[in-house]
């Protein structure tokens, strides 16, 4: 195992433990660590919203800019001051969340293969975010702005890009004119617009994007930032004076850390670090990684063009084209570069029902590494071998808790590429084929490696999404569990609880009529 892999695995283990710990108070859906991208986007909208107000009241003159922003904080503290503080703290939060998002995706190995595009388009956003943030601090034109502007100019001058040192623009108080602030405002609006455009590209190849976290997370985050804004309003440092070196300053370490780093080292070292880090991030996907799993395969004869796989694919890897054999019908087409090989499409296909009588079950879209036919074969063999008073079939996501240890005479375990690849009709098929109960294990809520597997599974079983589980299936005979990797104890406990429930005599009457496919009819 390479050093990088060891490092990544170690970091992912730490990240996972923290995430799981936060599942306790927050639950999966509201766990901010599981929705860092959406939380970042939300913070960006807070920044944009508060920034629009600041833009309307900002007076872009050398002295006026300082006093107009100061007026907000001192005279209009209850509204303008809060919005200014929100603007600043949401920006800091955005930087923090963006960094955590980057580390998390790296930890979990989500930067190569079908995620390559999102990773590559995400890296430049780091630069745009910091350019926006640093430029924003200059607009206030206080001593912190002076320090940042001068230090940035000196840093830029190390690169051979200007014929004259840009730091000459900040030599003396009369070096600065009102036009500088007009330009700054345009930069501080233009670069964030580029950032938003880049974010659009960043999520372009993902379907069902979480543009916002849950309402509860949004409200709680906003409330936390408003309380912070009231308790510790964002204020300006003393006004800039280029004839003096700034003294001791309140310093934003989230955005401006690069200046102390330059003072501590040198511009050469800082540029080397920045370019090396950027190059490293771009180069990460080039490191050796496991070969991609085979992509989903469409069988035109069995594809009805129903669009369900298109609707469910988490990575927009499926497109619909006119069916070559059936005029007026559509055919699913898989882009293998984007396919995550999760099998969610196979789970969504209406042709994936095991009740079809054909000996070889060929569905509309299938996974070569674990076909629906093979899954039915496995299930039928397992059902035939089950014995005991309460025979349970466990369908388990291979990326969730290790379920193979649960296998016993009365328990059959069938691993799945992702819980989302299980067509709900398999639950009914198992119950009518001899099982007394079916336990389906997904990853923890909101932690599906393929983003949507757990969500689609829950919605399909609840009848909220097609293909749905038929209502005739007794709910008491189905147990849904969300035990991620490492949660083997939770899964085992869920199985024991389920067995205890199956002991309930009241369930005896809730038996589905048996179905024997090979008898070609309902038994």
């Amino acid at each position, binding site marked *: 195992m390479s050093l990088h892999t060891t490092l990544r695995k170690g970091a992912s283990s730490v990240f996972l433990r923290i995430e799981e710990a936060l599942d*306790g108070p*927050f639950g999966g859906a509201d766990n901010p660590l599981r929705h860092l991208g959406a939380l970042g986007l939300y913070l960006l909208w807070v920044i944009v919203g508060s920034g629009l107000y600041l833009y309307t009241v900002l007076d872009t003159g050398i002295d006026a800019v300082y006093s107009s922003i100061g007026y907000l904080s001192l005279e209009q503290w209850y509204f303008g001051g809060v919005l200014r503080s929100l603007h600043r703290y949401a920006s800091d939060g955005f930087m923090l969340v963006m960094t955590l998002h980057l580390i998390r995706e790296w930890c979990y190995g989500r930067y190569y293969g079908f995620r390559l595009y999102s990773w590559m388009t995400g890296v430049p956003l780091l630069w745009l975010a910091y350019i926006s943030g640093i430029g924003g601090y200059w607009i206030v034109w206080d001593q912190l702005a002076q320090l940042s502007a001068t230090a940035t100019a*000196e840093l830029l001058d190390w690169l051979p890009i200007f014929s004259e040192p840009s*730091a000459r623009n900040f030599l*003396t108080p009369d070096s600065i004119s009102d036009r500088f602030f007009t330009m700054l405002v345009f930069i501080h609006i233009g670069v964030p617009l580029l950032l938003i455009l880049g974010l659009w590209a960043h999520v372009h190849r993902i379907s069902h994007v979480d543009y916002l976290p849950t309402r509860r997370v949004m409200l709680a985050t906003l409330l936390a930032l408003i309380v912070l804004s009231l308790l510790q309003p964002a204020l300006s440092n003393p006004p800039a004076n280029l004839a003096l070196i700034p003294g001791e300053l309140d310093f934003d370490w989230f955005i401006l850390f690069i*200046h102390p780093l330059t003072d501590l080292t040198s511009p050469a070292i800082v540029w080397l670090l920045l370019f090396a880090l950027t190059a490293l991030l771009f180069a990460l996907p080039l490191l050796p990684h496991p070969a991609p799993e085979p992509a989903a395969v469409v069988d035109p004869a069995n594809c009805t063009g129903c669009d369900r796989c298109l609707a469910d694919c988490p990575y927009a890897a499926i497109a619909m084209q006119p069916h070559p054999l059936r005029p007026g019908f559509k055919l699913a087409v898989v882009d293998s570069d984007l396919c995550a090989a999760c099998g969610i499409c196979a789970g969504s296909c209406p042709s994936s029902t095991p009740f079809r009588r054909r000996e070889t079950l060929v569905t509309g879209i299938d996974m070569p590494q674990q076909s629906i036919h093979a899954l039915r074969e496995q299930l039928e063999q397992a059902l035939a071998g089950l014995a005991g008073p309460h025979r349970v079939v466990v369908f388990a996501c291979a990326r969730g808790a290790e379920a193979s240890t649960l296998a016993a005479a009365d328990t059959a375990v069938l691993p799945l590429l992702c819980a989302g690849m299980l067509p709900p009709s398999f639950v009914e098929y198992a119950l009518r084929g001899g099982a007394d109960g079916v336990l389906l294990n997904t990853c923890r809520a909101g932690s599906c490696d393929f983003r949507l597997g757990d969500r689609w599974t829950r919605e399909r079983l609840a009848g909220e999404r097609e293909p749905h589980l038929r209502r005739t299936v007794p709910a008491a005979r189905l147990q849904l569990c969300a035990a991620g990797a490492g949660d083997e104890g939770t899964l085992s406990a869920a199985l024991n609880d389920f067995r205890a429930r199956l002991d309930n005599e009241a369930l005896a009457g809730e038996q589905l009529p048996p179905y024997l496919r090979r008898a070609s009819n309902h038994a």
Partner: protein
Amino acid sequence: MPKPVAIIGQVILYGAFAAFIGYFATSPKYHQVADDVALIKLSISHLGERECRKRSPEELAKMPPNMRAPLDCPRERSDIRLEVDLDGQPILQTVMHPTGLYKDGVSTIYRRFEVKAGSHQLAVRMNDNLVKPGFNFVKEERISLKPHQVMVIDFNPDQGGLFFR
């Protein structure tokens, strides 16, 4: 986790998030230079001289009337030699090269020198035509710098060459 405990946990964690942001948005305070330090910024942007040759009357006569410039000047500019001494000690000795592919642009320099506040003897010497020996611009002065004061060494031929401000 029971709901009341979960809610308390969420309040604590959101509070910690806000406190973390609130703290590092302003703290620890940053002090770029010590209290008893002043700054001398050396910033010069100047076109080096060209060594021009005066054309003879015969040469001018051979040229088309509209091109009879009395001086034949090369495109390239001279390097500029610059020396700065503080309290008799050299703190900078450099040669500035002209910018541009044809070395016909300005020669520039920007340096910061952090010095103790107080009185200092500052001497700056510059030669913008290295064909000639010595320094054609010299500025030497006793300066008095207050703590955190920024003093700029600049050059403007219209203001008599080197100047301090």
